[in-house]
Structures are given as C-alpha cells and as structure tokens.
C-alpha cells in the first residue's frame, strides 16, 4: 500500500506556543537530532518513505533542521493563510501521484505512534478520515486520510485541522506523547530521552555510563560531566565547566569556563559565557527560559549568552576584532587618549536597567532588588 506523509511545522493554535525564540520546537535538536528528523525516521521505519514538509518559518531557519532534508522529500514554506493551502496542495500532489493513504502529522505534539496499527485501524473502520487522539481524548493533530477523499482533506485543512467534514472514529493512542507546547515540554522530552521513556536515544558515543558525546565534541580535561548528560557534535566545553542532572548541550555550542549547567538544555549554536549558573532552564537564541519561574528573559549582553556564527565567519570576525583593537590601542597611544572604560560589576549594578529604566539600587535604601544577583553554590563556598 502506498502511504505518504505530510508533515506540518507551524499552525499553532495559540500564539507563542510550540516555539522557542520564534523557531518551531519541531525543528530544534533534542539529544543531537531534530525532532522532525526523528519523526521522519519513525515513519520510514514503518515503511512510509515519501514525505512532504510544510513549514511556516522563513527559509533562513531551515538549516536548523539540518539532516532532516533527504532525497525525494518535498520542502515548502508558507506563511499565514497560505500555510494551510500549501498543506492542501502537498496532499493533492500525493493523491495525484497515486498514493492510497496520506498521513497528516502536525508538529505539534511528539507522539511515538505505531503507524502500522494506525493505518490498519483506518482501513478496518472504513472511514474517510481517521483522527488520532491521546488517552484523554485530546486530538494530536495527526490524521490518516484516504487519498481519494480530496474534499474531506480540503475541508480539514481549511478548518486548520479542527473540524472534519464527516464525523469519524478517533484512534486512541496510549503510548508516549509530549505535546511540546512550551520550553518545559521540550525539556521533559530530553529527560524522557535519557530515561528511555521516549525512544529518543542520544546521538553520540557513550563515553561512560549516561554520558554521550557527539562527533568532534571537545571537553576540557578539567570540565566535569555528570551522568546523565549529552554534548552534541562540534561543541566545546571549557575548563571548570560542569554539566549535571540531565543537561543537554546541542551541536556547535560553547560552554565557557567555570559555567555550571544543571538540569538545562543549551540549544544549538549557543555560547554560554564564563562563570554562569544555568539551572532549570532552556538557553538559546539569546534567551533564557527558566522553567521553575516560567519566565522568558532576553539577554542583550553577549558576554553572557550569544549565538555562535559559522566557523569561517567567526574567524573573520575575530581577526577583524583583533585588528581593530590593535589599531585603536596604537591610535590611543599616539593621541594620548583614554579608552572608554567598561563599568565594573558594582557600578553596572548601580546603572539603570534598560528594561526597567530604574537603577538596581533603590534611591532610598541603596539596596539591590532581592534575587537579581546570586552566586553559585559551587566553587569556593
């Protein structure tokens, strides 16, 4: 039987959900591989090899899901209302191509479905469309549509997968599901991968029980990795850094000296500055999502969190920076001018906060706002 899949990345019901820093969670890496790639692998495992991916994000973000694109795969981008039209069009292409059934999967939720069983259920029920829902009856935005039922498919896409033309039986799935609505779900998915609850094995070599390293990952000999943890390909963990309690450092990431990463995920191409304590958070795209406080903080200071560019760009940038510094120093020496001094920590604390427009030091008491400054529990204490 010719079964194809249309994978939709986008079309979230609520604004701001199912994405981190504007990137759909489905395109982000979890334990070394994008969720999209893992879904495609699962489909392939059940013999569903042809897939079309429709995304709502610009083409520049696509390389995030590197490795997901494979031969014979259609990839299209469409924003706003065109997104659902593009999905419908992908369905029609498969129908015209002779497919008998088309699976529509919106990421959305990550579910470890038994696609064989799902297809069999659809055929047994004789429905035009079969919807998948979880044990509690909540729809998972996964459907099996008979390819000949174009009108039903069109109706479904035009109602953004929320209404069906003809009522049908739900396929109740009781296996592993993660709705991936927010950073917390994303983090839980990584932990479930470590624990083996989800079938998401870390992509790397297990150097000791519970510690995985991706290709070309560099770990300084004075860094500590406590199981379970994962360091993705081409990442760099510098001296005195500590990764612990299920921390995940994705590919092309740098954890600078003395930084502690505890129960956190560092997204791909992120640099985490020196001497920080990153706990119970997801970090990336110059943002920190703290899971305990349920807050998202944008970090402007690139010394703390920044996004790494590709190696050649970085090299050029460093060379330019070095040349500029030498030129500036020479000029200052010749002209006898002093360079603008970066404020010390305590001075910086007294300066007005950009967001709050007020100083950390209250005018009357001269005390800083309670918890904004904290020192790690590790180190010399």
């Amino acid at each position, binding site marked *: 039987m010719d079964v194809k899949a249309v994978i939709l990345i986008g079309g979230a019901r609520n604004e701001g959900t199912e994405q981190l820093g504007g990137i759909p969670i489905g395109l982000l890496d979890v334990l070394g591989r994008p969720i999209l790639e893992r879904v495609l692998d699962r489909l392939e495992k059940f013999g569903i090899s042809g897939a079309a991916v429709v995304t709502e994000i610009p083409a520049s973000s696509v390389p995030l899901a590197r490795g997901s694109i494979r031969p014979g795969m259609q990839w299209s981008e469409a924003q706003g209302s065109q997104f659902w039209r593009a999905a419908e069009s992908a369905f029609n292409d498969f129908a015209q191509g002779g497919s008998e059934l088309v699976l529509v999967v919106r990421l959305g939720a990550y579910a470890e479905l038994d696609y064989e069983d799902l297809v069999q259920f659809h055929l047994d029920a004789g429905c035009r469309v079969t919807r998948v829902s979880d044990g509690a009856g909540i729809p998972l935005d996964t459907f099996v549509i008979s390819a000949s039922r174009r009108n039903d498919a069109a109706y479904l896409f035009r109602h953004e997968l929320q209404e069906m033309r003809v009522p049908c039986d739900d396929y109740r799935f009781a296996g592993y599901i993660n709705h991936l609505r927010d950073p917390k779900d994303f983090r839980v998915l990584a932990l479930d991968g470590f624990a083996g609850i989800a079938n998401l094995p870390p992509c790397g070599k297990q150097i000791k029980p519970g510690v995985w390293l991706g290709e070309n990952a560099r770990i300084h000999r004075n860094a500590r990795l406590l199981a379970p943890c994962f360091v993705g390909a081409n990442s760099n963990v510098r001296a005195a850094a500590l990764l612990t309690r299920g921390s995940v450092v994705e590919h092309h990431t740098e954890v600078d000296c003395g930084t502690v990463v505890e129960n956190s995920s560092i997204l791909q191409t992120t640099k985490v500055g020196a001497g920080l304590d990153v706990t119970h958070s997801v970090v990336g795209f110059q943002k920190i999502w703290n899971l305990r406080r349920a807050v998202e903080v944008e970090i402007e200071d690139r010394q703390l969190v920044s996004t790494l560019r590709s190696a050649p760009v970085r090299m050029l940038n460093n060379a330019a920076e070095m040349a500029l510094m030498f030129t500036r120093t020479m000029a200052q020496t010749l002209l006898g001018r002093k360079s603008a001094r970066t404020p010390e920590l305590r001075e910086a604390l007294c300066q007005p906060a950009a967001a709050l427009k007020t100083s950390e030091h209250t005018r009357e*008491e*001269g005390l800083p706002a309670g918890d904004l400054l904290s020192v790690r529990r590790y*180190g010399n204490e």
Partner: protein
Amino acid sequence: MKICLVTAFPPSRRGLNEYGYHIARELQRDPLLSLTVLADELPSAEPELDEFDVVRCWSFNQLKNSSRLLKCIRDIRPDVVWFNLLFSTFGDQPIPAFAGLMAPVLSRMTGHYTHVTLHHLMDNINLKDAGIRFPRVYRAAGYTATRMLLMANSISVLLPAYRRTLMERYRGENIHFRAHGILSARPEPPNYNLRGVNGHRILAFGKWGTYKRLELLIEAFRLVAKKMPTARLVIAGSNHPMTPGYVESVAAQLKNCPNVEFTGYVAEEQIPGLFRSASVMVMPYSSATGSSGVAHLACEYGVPIVSADIDDFREMAEDEGLAILFYGTGDPQSLASRLIDLLQNSELQREMSEQNFSSALRMTMPQIIRQYLRSFDLHKRAKALEPISRFRRLPAWVPSRSAIFRAAAPRWSPWM
C-alpha cells in the same frame, strides 16, 4: 560571614554602648554569622557579657587606637568590619578622636570590607552648644574626618538629611539611610493602666549637660505643676562626659522639690519600668546630633513625645511616622502649654502612643540589622563575581581561555 563590630560596648558606658550592644545582640542571634566585638577598654576589670566574643583593643583618648584595631582586624580576618561611630567615639580630645577616625579608611586599605554607621555629622552639630572653644578648627577637622570616613566602603546614616549632606557637600558614594530602630525584637504593647497612676509622669532621658539641658524643662515643669499639681518630672540619665557634675548641681537646686525625681544612670533592665509608667517623654534639646535614640525608646514603649522644634527631629518624625508634638526651641511657655494640652487630653495621649508603637513595629532591630546584612551579603556576592566578570571581557580571539581561567581564578572550581 565573619563580622568585626567596632563599638563602645557594655559594661563600658561610653557613647553608643547601648546601640552597639543591641547590634551585637541581633547579630549574635544569626547562627550563620560569627561576630567579634572590638570594644573599648574598661577603666577597671569587669566581667564581660555572656555569649559575646569581645576583644577590648582600644581606649578612649588614646593615639594608637587605629593601629591596635588594625592589628586585631588582621588577626581575625573578618569579611566585614563594621564601625558604630560618633565623632567622639575614640576620644573627647581632638587629636585622639581624629586619629581613631582614621581606622575605617585604614581597615579598607588593608582589604577588608568596611562599613560605618555614623550617628551624626559635624556639619549638623551646634558646636557652641557642645561646649567647643574653637569651632572653626573643629569644623575643619570635622570636614577632614568626614572625608576620611567616606573612604570606607559604605556608610549608613540615620537621617535622610545627613545622606543628602554627604552626597551633595562631600560628593560621597555608597551612602545609605537606615532608620535608627527601636533596640528590641518584639516590643510589648503599652499598658495604659500603668500611666497616670497618682498623677502623670513626665520623663526626660539622656546624657545631660551639653545641648541637652534641664533648665528649660524645669522652668516649664513649674508652669505645668501649677495647673496639674500631681504631675511628676522624672529626670533619668547621667552627665554627659563633657559636663561632669551637671546633673548633681541641678539636683541640688531641686532637692526641696518632691515632684522632681532624679534616677541617675539607668541600667538596661530598668528601662522598661521607667518608660511603661511615663505619660509623656520630653526632649528639651537646644540642637540635635542626629537621630534620637531616646525618641526610638519612647516609640518602643508607645510613649507620646514632646520635642524641641529642631529640623532633624521634624524630618525624623516625618520619615519614620513618629507622633511628636513640637514646641518652640528654648521657649518654656511653649513647652509647658504643649505638655498641659497633652496631659489633659487622654485621647490624644492614646492616639500618639498607638502611632509611636506602630512605628516601632515597623523598625524593630531585626528588621534594621537585616538591611545591613543584606547589603554586606550583596557586597560579598559582587566581590565573588568580579573576577569572572572581568574574565568574560576577554575578547573571543584570545587563545587558551581555559588556561587563563585556571590561572586567574583557581579558587572558583575546587573540582579542578
């Protein structure tokens, strides 16, 4: 956190010994703190108070106080050195007093975080009232001493006006305003049944002789006694160190006056009884030398206050929400009329009492000390973060970041 508190400390009776004691008592309650009191030497050997680690390492009017203090501080190696100071803490002679005031800056220079709680400013003291013969010389020395004190890491003053003066006139930094506090952790509500029994008791409390004089009060009390014959005046406290024999001379003049009682020095344990039975507390001062500890004691026991109309006291009342009736400074008629108005109006007494007591509840000693500790803790954290903050500024192209980090901050990572 290890703290060295430099203060006059009981059983010494020097200025600020009571305040120093209450600071120490609060600090001692915190199990995470280690406190050493660097106190003044006693004229004769007396047993130290239980539970306190007291090192008596400086003397009143000694020139070597700074170096002796520094030696002690070096031995103890505290995280914070906290000075509880008046300008006359180290001596009433100008040179020893000035030499002693160098201790905070020297302490900072030796690398210790130094905090000064300054109870008054020379700029706000009426030197004439204080009996100073060469006010200009004292002003110049006071200016220099203030500048030296400002070289400490941080300073706390007890009136907002002092903070303004230090910031505007001296261009000082890290100056905090902190309320004086009421010297108690849990003040007891006033018992109104104890007041006005066999006549109202008018209480005056302090160290008498300089800017705290009794003549005006006694004159005003005579006027009060004419209208309220059962009223009693209780004059508590001893002589100011600069005016020995003053209280005794006044007492001798009034020995035939049964309505006036002199208690002399009041020990800590006798203070509650004294204040609980008082209907009103009078502050008959000619000028002020800072936030009034006596006013805060009155608040602690919910006693209404009548005070001379002095700017510092007005500001203190406004900032801390104290109920104070002000009379014209130096005017006995005004003081007497204020006292009579208050003593004849039980509702007003109760209202003022409750307001003062509620103010007291907002500034208990634990709350005040917590503010200090919070700022010390902030400093400690900022200090711990500073090396790493500098390290982060290294440009990305600098090679061997790991090696530099290890060399620069080995203490950061004990697992290395």
